[in-house]
């Protein structure tokens, strides 16, 4: 069955290529691709990443960097969402509903304008980077990529984290609410304080239930990072557009980019799957 579906898919794909080849008379030319991945740098005499790989690494950075605040938003607002008091619940609800009911793109346009024009100057990121010593600059570059793009990357990270955080909030809320009330009752009946109950009974159980869907959301985050191209964050999709224009090999460039995203996300899902299995094995 699987084999049948797979071969049908391969056939269909082959057919599309064939049509593109014959009917549109598209002339495949992959020769520009290797060079847009890596290029030979005359000055240093080494292979250095060209636009596509630079974008790829920025995408990886964006994903990893925004994962942390996104998970943090998710954890904090997810917990607030289940709070007994009305105000925290309302606050968190507003955050989630706002983000879920506005197209991500529109949210990011609004938010990016706000961040880059209001928050970044307040944080003084640009000045900080300009005034940083070479040593700090090196470690900053290790984390955020090329110095010139640091404010750009940080804006992207905040946008992505805000918007992914809303989805993680819902995951965390569902995880916490999936712990039966009887667990709370059992904890209270041995005299645990609210905090100890939370820390020793609810949280450890909720964490286990939340990690698989959070891993899935992380992969979604990687894919969704491509919309940051529209606010000029120089990640893979953004640089792919540039490369497609400059090389005029539109098809080849985008297929390469799709391959890069696929590899990244597929590797991640394999890694998470393995992690989950070993965690399950450790528990049994």
């Amino acid at each position: 069955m699987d084999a049948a579906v797979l071969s049908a898919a391969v056939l269909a794909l082959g057919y599309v290529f064939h049509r593109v080849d014959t009917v549109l008379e598209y002339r495949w030319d992959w020769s520009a691709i290797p060079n847009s991945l890596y290029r030979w740098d005359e000055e240093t005499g080494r292979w250095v990443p060209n636009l596509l790989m630079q974008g790829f690494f920025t995408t990886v950075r964006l994903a990893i960097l925004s994962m942390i605040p996104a998970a943090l938003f998710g954890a904090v607002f997810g917990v607030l969402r289940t709070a007994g008091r009305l105000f925290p619940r309302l606050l968190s609800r507003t955050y989630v509903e706002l983000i879920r009911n506005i197209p991500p793109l529109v949210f990011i346009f609004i938010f990016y304008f706000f961040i880059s024009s209001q928050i970044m100057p307040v944080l003084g990121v640009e000045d900080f980077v300009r005034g940083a010593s070479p040593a700090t600059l090196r470690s900053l570059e290790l984390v955020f990529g090329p110095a010139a793009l640091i404010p750009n990357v940080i804006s992207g990270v905040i946008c992505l984290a805000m918007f992914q955080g809303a989805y993680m909030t819902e995951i965390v809320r569902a995880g916490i609410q999936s712990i039966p009330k009887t667990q709370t009752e059992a904890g209270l009946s041995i005299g645990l304080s609210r905090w100890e109950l939370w820390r020793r009974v609810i949280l450890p159980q909720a964490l286990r239930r939340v990690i698989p869907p959070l891993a899935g959301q992380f992969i979604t985050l990687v894919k969704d990072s491509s919309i940051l191209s529209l606010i000029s964050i120089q990640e893979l999709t953004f640089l792919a557009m540039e490369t497609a224009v400059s090389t005029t090999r539109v098809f080849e460039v985008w297929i390469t980019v799709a391959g890069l995203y696929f590899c990244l996300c597929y590797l991640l899902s394999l890694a998470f799957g393995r992690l989950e299995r070993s965690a399950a094995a450790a528990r049994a």
Partner: protein
Amino acid sequence: MERLTPAEPLIELDGVSKWFGAFQVLRDVSLRVAEGERIVICGPSGSGKSTLIRCINRLEEHQEGRVVFAGRELGADTAGLTEVRREIGMVFQEFNLFPHLTVLENCMLGPVRVLGMSPADARERAMEFLGRVRIPEQAGKHPAQLSGGQQQRAAIARSLCMRPRVMLFDEPTSALDPVMIKEVLDVMNDLAESGMTMIVVTHEMGFARTVADRVAFMDEGSIVECLPPDRFFTSPADERTKRFLSQIL
């Protein structure tokens, strides 16, 4: 622990009423339980038995009347509430062990986190009580690996580790097979012999007959009557009690 004069009950319910929305679950319930006394509560499903004993450690809030434990009235003051709760053990129908902890860790959690005992002392105490409920060899397992009867005994041990002054049981054997029921009832018999104050919601009339000092019959949110077992089983006054007994015996 303050000394109680014999006349002063350990637990006193005085005119307790409770509503779930418009539905009245408890109607003006009064009950006094002396230290060392063993009360069995029975009655048809939905009569409010669970709600009543859950009011004693305030898992449910009552709206009228007073609930007093060892001279302290239970109210909205939550700081005092955890202090009261550590002295009241509770055993649930569905065991409600913490699934992510081993049986031993289940038993140590309260002593370490609530009583502030050292892990070594807590472990010693936990092993002592696991021995008393006759499952010391299960200490390292997780609840899911135990039979129902073993889980319920672990839950009893978990409560006992807090050295409570009273144990509340809410249908502790209703989710169990006959063989397991006996294991749990044996442990509860031991507990009664050790002088523990107990309030037990159960339909195990054999247990009520041999262990209880008084048997209370509840119907539609009221305690219809509350008598020593010999009189309860032979000459109940109320028609409803008679009907209930004829159905269950």
